[in-house]
């Protein structure tokens, strides 16, 4: 137990801070920003599964986020279903569409796959904007109910009206996503994902069905993207086709890359700190996005492993110098 604590005290600290955060942050605006950051972290983590662990760049992630958002909005607002039924159905719908389009597109590799998914995202956006009877067209859907309260026998009901309760709900789903991603990474199946990432041909030659591996990773990633989208629609109360633009996909991509691709902490760090960084760059107004683009290019050229890569490099250097000092002392 002590040993476990020693290795993981930092994560435990982060968890405690995360659990206490609503008590510390009472400002409505900031707590909204933080809740959204956690929500985007779910999407970033799922993008990391397909990009960071399986090596396939999908540019339809925002599209699948929107699929989840729209299906939950339609099920809860238009059809009046319970949110807790709509959410898993919405996420499953995104996963199912991911399966359908992954079947043909995952046969293409590298940039080809990236461009096929880019087109797919655009198709989702166009449908969201033009299928007026179902999606409400460019006005979107307004008045989506918040998550339905859960009755707990003997204790009353768990409602999600207050900001703190919404925060805890999103935190719960983020932890769930993180847990699933962690289990995948540590599993044999996860190892096959990474085998595809390292060398697809080699993976195929040692008997891994690379196509099925990629498809599975894509479907799971899209399930969580849809999940994040569904929660987003319900918490915000309104959605429009703007959730399906490539802009959102690019945001997710940046969270993953700046945080550190191929790590579990990286996408969360990216999703959490990038919006805060942008918030601080608010004073630049219109120049904010220009600077953002410059930042992205600099990071890709000089620190392509993101924050986590940088962190690893520094800790390794410290370790090395420590080991060096010890061996020098022995001599």
């Amino acid at each position, binding site marked *: 137990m002590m040993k476990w604590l020693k290795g993981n005290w930092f994560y435990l600290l982060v968890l405690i801070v995360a659990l206490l955060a609503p008590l510390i942050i009472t400002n409505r605006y900031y707590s909204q920003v933080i809740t959204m950051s956690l929500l985007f972290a779910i999407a970033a983590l799922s993008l990391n599964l397909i990009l960071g662990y399986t*090596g396939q760049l999908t540019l339809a992630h925002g599209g699948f986020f929107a699929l989840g958002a729209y299906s939950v909005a339609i099920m809860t607002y238009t059809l009046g279903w319970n949110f807790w039924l709509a959410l898993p159905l919405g996420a499953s719908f995104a996963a199912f569409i991911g399966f359908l389009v992954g*079947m043909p597109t995952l*046969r*293409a590799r590298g940039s080809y796959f990236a461009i096929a998914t880019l*087109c797919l995202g655009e*198709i989702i956006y166009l449908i969201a904007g033009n299928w007026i009877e179902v999606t409400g067209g460019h006005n979107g859907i307004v008045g989506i109910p918040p998550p339905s309260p859960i009755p707990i026998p003997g204790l009353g009901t768990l409602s999600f009206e207050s900001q703190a309760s919404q925060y805890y709900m999103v935190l719960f789903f983020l932890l769930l996503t993180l847990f699933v991603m962690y289990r995948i990474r540590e599993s044999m199946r996860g190892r096959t994902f990474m085998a595809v990432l390292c060398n697809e041909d080699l993976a195929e030659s040692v008997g891994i069905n690379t196509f099925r591996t990629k498809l599975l990773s894509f479907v799971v990633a899209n399930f969580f993207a849809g999940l994040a989208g569904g929660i987003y629609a319900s918490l915000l109360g309104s959605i429009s086709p703007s959730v399906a633009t490539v802009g959102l996909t690019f945001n997710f991509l940046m969270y993953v890359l700046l945080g550190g691709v191929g790590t579990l902490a990286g996408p969360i760090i990216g999703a959490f700190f990038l919006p805060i960084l942008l918030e601080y760059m608010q004073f630049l107004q219109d120049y904010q996005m220009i600077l953002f*683009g410059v930042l992205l*290019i600099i990071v*890709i*050229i000089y620190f392509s492993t993101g924050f986590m890569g940088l962190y690893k490099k520094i800790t390794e250097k410290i370790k090395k110098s420590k080991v060096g000092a010890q061996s020098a002392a022995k001599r």
Partner: protein
Amino acid sequence: MELFLQQVFNGVMLGSTYAIVALGLTLVFGILHVPNFAHGHMYMLGAYVCFFLITIFGFAYWPAVALAAILLAVAGVVLEVLVFKPLRNDPGFNPLIAALGALIILENAVVVLWGPEGHRIPNPYPGIIDVFGITMSVQRLLVIGMAAVMIILLQLFIKKTTLGSTIEAVAQNKEGATLVGINVNFVSAMTFAISTALAAVAACLVAPIFMISPSMGALVGMKAFVIVILGGLGSIPGAIAGGMILGLIEALGGGYFSAAYKDVFGFGALVLILAIRPTGLFGKEIKGR
């Protein structure tokens, strides 16, 4: 029948502009292997430069087109040197993501400088010709004619001049090209210059027909990628054929089925083609990039 011919004419006009834009992209993507996602935004920038040359500096149409092409060629070289050159030997998706950074900068810079609203370049040739019941505006005929001229010029440059053949040499074998004394850096910069200049010409040609706006580049850039893949990476005839196919799919799909969904047909066609042929219609090699 007249509706059909009218749509075919519109499709060929659209296809001609797509073909020029895609030609530029097939050079950098197919030959230098740089997935330049900012290509559509260079097209947008070309339209803006042309617009300002005409409205503010009082240029006539053709000098404005020529100057816009030259200025965009310079912009292309700057893009190559600053963004893509440091990543030339980088595996994976980093050049692609750097391109995303570049397009964010370009789009927002244009919004900041000139506002998000649309503009229209005054039409230099407002005349209309009526042939067998099909209305053809002179400007649209001009687009088709200019596209043909640009394609022939590019083909002559690459096949008949020494400078042009260095591009093919680098495409075939970078090390080999270096060994025989070809400066790869120079060829890369030149290819980018040609690529963005072509995009600028295409933008200047259609700007009097459609509106120009900061967001016009994204869709065109995406379509250019669709075409390049349809036609096979680095293939010039493929880019022309792909451009025409996409233009016709859009015009006929938009005319007969639904104008709102016309882009869905084009993108859907790409997804389908990739499903059947993962390396594109005319593509041969599989590259793990």
